[in-house]
């Protein structure tokens, strides 16, 4: 703060110019040196303080002291200088406020390349996540959601789905039975549902067409656990019954759903199959999502589709008229389709999982990958 206002004797323009620039350069020098709020306060008071501040001195020593003819010129210059001082104080304050001092900020700096502190959030199970995704696709198409019991009667799991007692098609289901059912009539015997299709029947029993439902859930088969089999797995079943539902509608619906799940470039291929509860029945393949249906990947045959370019994904068909007989629907007036897909199979495809058992161990090293 070496600067102090000079007493002027010469009020000529050159003399005033010199004095003004002297003040201006002192001001900018002082402003630049301010590094802390404390320093700033001293700086502000020195220049602007009502008692003894530079501006007050200017007023006294220059303006008041100037002779009459020069007063106007001096007044103008003093005003300009006053503005300059005010601006300098303001900008110095702004500079101080944006960061106390470069030195202090430097002392506070962190190694921002260190990892952040993360609060772990739980991971959705890939199978349940996939099941929810499938359900969402159909909900967007106007399908309601239904559930049914995991322990079913023979009637719901088989008979009403057009698997007559002693029909060989039952062999394909590898059923797990509840013990101690021998004294009951066959249709009342309890078993673990082998598919989510019984929910179709339960739904049609409680409501009249139009029906449009998806039924996600757990199913069981008597399959020993290995890399591709699990006694417990999940299915999503769908059912649409209305007047004028056709095989073309089934194709369009399944095609739409597969595109929604696997991407719009996926193609579907339908070919005849057999399920007791649908007629005509179809198996559906999608074009291999690993090799884009080419059958070839990385210069060799695609392992995921066994070089065929297609992956089998779901079963479907037009609801067999016999099924309507079990739920008092008039097969002559309505028609409908049903489809079912294995959730694990789709999750395995989506995430490239190579062992189905990983889904059931609760291994956090596996689960956390889906977080």
């Amino acid at each position, binding site marked *: 703060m070496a600067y102090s206002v000079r007493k002027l004797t010469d009020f000529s323009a050159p003399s005033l110019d010199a004095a003004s620039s002297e003040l201006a350069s002192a001001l900018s020098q002082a402003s630049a040196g301010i590094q802390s709020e404390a320093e700033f306060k001293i700086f502000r008071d020195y220049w602007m303080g009502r008692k003894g501040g530079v501006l007050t001195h200017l007023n006294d020593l220059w303006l008041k002291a100037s002779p009459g003819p020069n007063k106007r010129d001096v007044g103008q210059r003093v005003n300009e200088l006053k503005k300059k001082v005010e601006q300098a104080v303001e900008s110095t304050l702004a500079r101080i406020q944006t960061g106390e001092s470069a030195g202090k900020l430097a002392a506070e700096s962190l190694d921002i390349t260190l990892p952040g*502190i*993360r*609060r*772990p*959030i*739980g*991971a*959705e*199970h890939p199978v349940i996540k996939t099941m929810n995704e499938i359900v969402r696709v159909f909900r967007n*198409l*106007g*399908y*309601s*959601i239904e559930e049914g*019991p*995991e*322990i079913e009667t023979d009637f719901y799991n088989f008979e009403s789905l057009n698997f007559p007692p*002693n029909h*060989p*098609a039952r*062999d394909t289901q590898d059923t*797990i*039975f*509840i*013990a101690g*059912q021998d004294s*009951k009539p066959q249709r*009342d015997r309890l078993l673990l549902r082998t598919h989510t299709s019984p929910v179709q029947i339960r739904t049609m029993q409680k409501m009249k067409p*139009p029906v449009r439902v998806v039924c996600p859930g*757990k199913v069981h088969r*008597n399959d020993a656990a290995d890399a591709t089999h699990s*006694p*417990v797995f999940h299915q999503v079943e769908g059912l*649409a019954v209305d007047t*004028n*539902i*056709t*095989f*073309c*509608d089934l*194709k*369009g619906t399944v095609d739409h759903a597969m595109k929604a799940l696997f991407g719009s470039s996926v193609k579907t291929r*339908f*070919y*005849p199959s*057999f399920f007791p509860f649908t*007629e*005509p029945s179809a*198996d559906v393949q999608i074009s291999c999502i690993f090799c884009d249906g080419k059958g070839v990947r990385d210069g060799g045959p695609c392992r995921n589709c066994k070089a065929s370019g297609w992956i089998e994904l779901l079963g479907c068909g037009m609801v*067999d*008229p016999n099924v309507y007989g079990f739920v008092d629907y008039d097969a002559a007036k309505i*028609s409908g389709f049903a489809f079912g897909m294995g959730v694990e199979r789709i999750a395995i495809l989506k995430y490239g999982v190579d062992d189905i058992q990983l*889904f*059931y*161990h*609760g*291994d*956090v*090293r596996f*689960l956390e990958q889906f977080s």
Partner: protein
Amino acid sequence: MKLSPSWISDFVDLPVDFARLADELTLSGVAVEGISGEGDNTVFEMEITTNRPDAMNHYGVAREASALYDVPLKPLDIKLPSFQGKSDITIDIQDPELCPRFTAREIRGVTIKPSPSNIANRLQLLGHKAINNAVDATNYVLWESGKPTHVFDLDLLEGRKLIIRKARSGERLKTLDGVERELSTEDLVVADAAKPVGLAGVMGGFDTMITEKTKNILIESAWWDPVTVRRMSKRHGIHTDASHRFERGADFESTVPSTNRVAQLILASGGGALIGEAIDVIARKIDLAPVEVDLREVRRVLGEKLNALEVMRILTRLGFPVLAGREESYLVHIPSWRLDVEREIDVIEEIARLHGYDKFASTLPPYSGEVRELPDAEKNDRTRSSLLALGYNETISLTFISKEDARLFSTSSELDLENPLSEEASAMRTSLVPGMLDMLAYNLHRSCDSVRLFESGNVFEASGAKALQSKSIALGLTGKIDDALTAGLAAGAASRQLSFFDLKGDVETMLAPFSHWTLYYDSQAPAYFHPGRSARAILDGTTVAQFGQIHPQIAEERKLKQEVFVAEIFLDRLYQHDLRQILYEPLPRFPAVERDFSFVFDDDVRFEKIYASVFGLSILELRSFVPVEIFRGEKVGAGKYSLLLRATLQSDVRTLRDDEVALWAEKITVALNALGGVRRA
């Protein structure tokens, strides 16, 4: 099932190569799952659906190919030499319901020897053992045209007659596989005058089989009731190529041609003479009724405008003769080999199949109904997203547990499995806890020491003759808090062991969204928990959760090497409560005042009691009263603990004065003293 495309081409001139044939058969519903070998040795691995026994042989697949490519199907080449004399064999069908037709044929003077190479090679290519010229002839015919047949050593049959009857109580039969079987009166057998010589449609008898010594042969080809064959196959645990076909339905018209074809093959390789004509006994005729098919129905189901000509052409190619009826209606005759086609819809499927599924358009049906969510969808979402946010990983464990676990972890009566995968998985789970403990152990054994898991699923119990299913959710917790942090930026992120209170807090978070009048916790948790570190949550008088540290002894038995905390929440009970309706409360306008109370209590004074007694003072301005610090140790003395409590006081209408706060503090102090609390200096 393996088939040879080269053998198929005996019956049809294929316009395509084998690879394309495989692909196109698959697309028409006769699935070829794999191809191996080359040229004449190419083998198709077939996956024929249950409803198509007619396609489980070479001629049947040739018939499909003929329909598919619209090329002629060649007839089976059955030529027999002229027969001599008359056979005096008699066939006595005692049960026409179960055996509508039985055909037999006698050959004499045969030499039993290995089959000629063309027969043996074809059987071997498909993985069947060549045995001798007579037995191989029956196998060859089975794979050629699908009809199971059987050959007896005629000289070992007693009484020159075959009787088809139910087995008698106490009768036994040694079957071809060498197993001596006790017969049931439900079994249908082929018997000679004295004894059963074959299990109908399933397997022939050991004692009357063809051997090197056989000179005279009786060939059998019958039509058996599918359900009867299936029951016998199940009862005796024998599944044969024959039973597989009979239980799906054989071709009623094939008994004579198949008998003749077997005779032809045996005579060609083993010599001998044909005696008399085929003995063909029809006890009951099985006619497949013609089906009326209306083109309007075809369109209604398929949604594509197929014209009459196309439909006629498809059906004719398939061997279904068609007669035109009124308007757009047609009468379709069903060939004897297609027992699966009985109804209009079955014919519609045939039309769709041969037309080609890929030729149908893809459309989306219009819909204007409501979309219903599951009744508990919102509650489930809330629960699940809370747990994910709390850092619990979602899991799925097996639905089965051991009977011991089913009883240890629940008081409900368990449902056992009739055919379990193993002893450890022989009951339906009565609780999610054992599965959760297994998953925690799985992680601990793999050096993952800090684990949070949850599983949402059903548990099961027997209720009379019924099975009850209820929704439950299990939380599993072990290890340290903030373990993940110490791996990164350790500074300031103190790691500590998870405790009962971490779990309790999570349970509280889970229960908080549900509206209720009362919620309290007692210590009456089941015995598999640590008796001093477990609790039940009782919401409006119902136990909705039980949780705590697993009993150290059980933890040790299950090889859990560290403290493990588990909660089970009974969702069916919790979901009886609605989600809390949230109503805004005005924000406080006047400052709050805090006062701390540091007291020493006897151990048996529980916080619940302190809390109730302080709130019992009815100080309206008391907004909260929480424990801030607990201390035990020498300084405090045995059987006692020091507790720092913090009261927050606040008014809605004014700033509190010091004197009134002092008065309330004094009241609280008196209440704490009354509980035996002693203020710490």
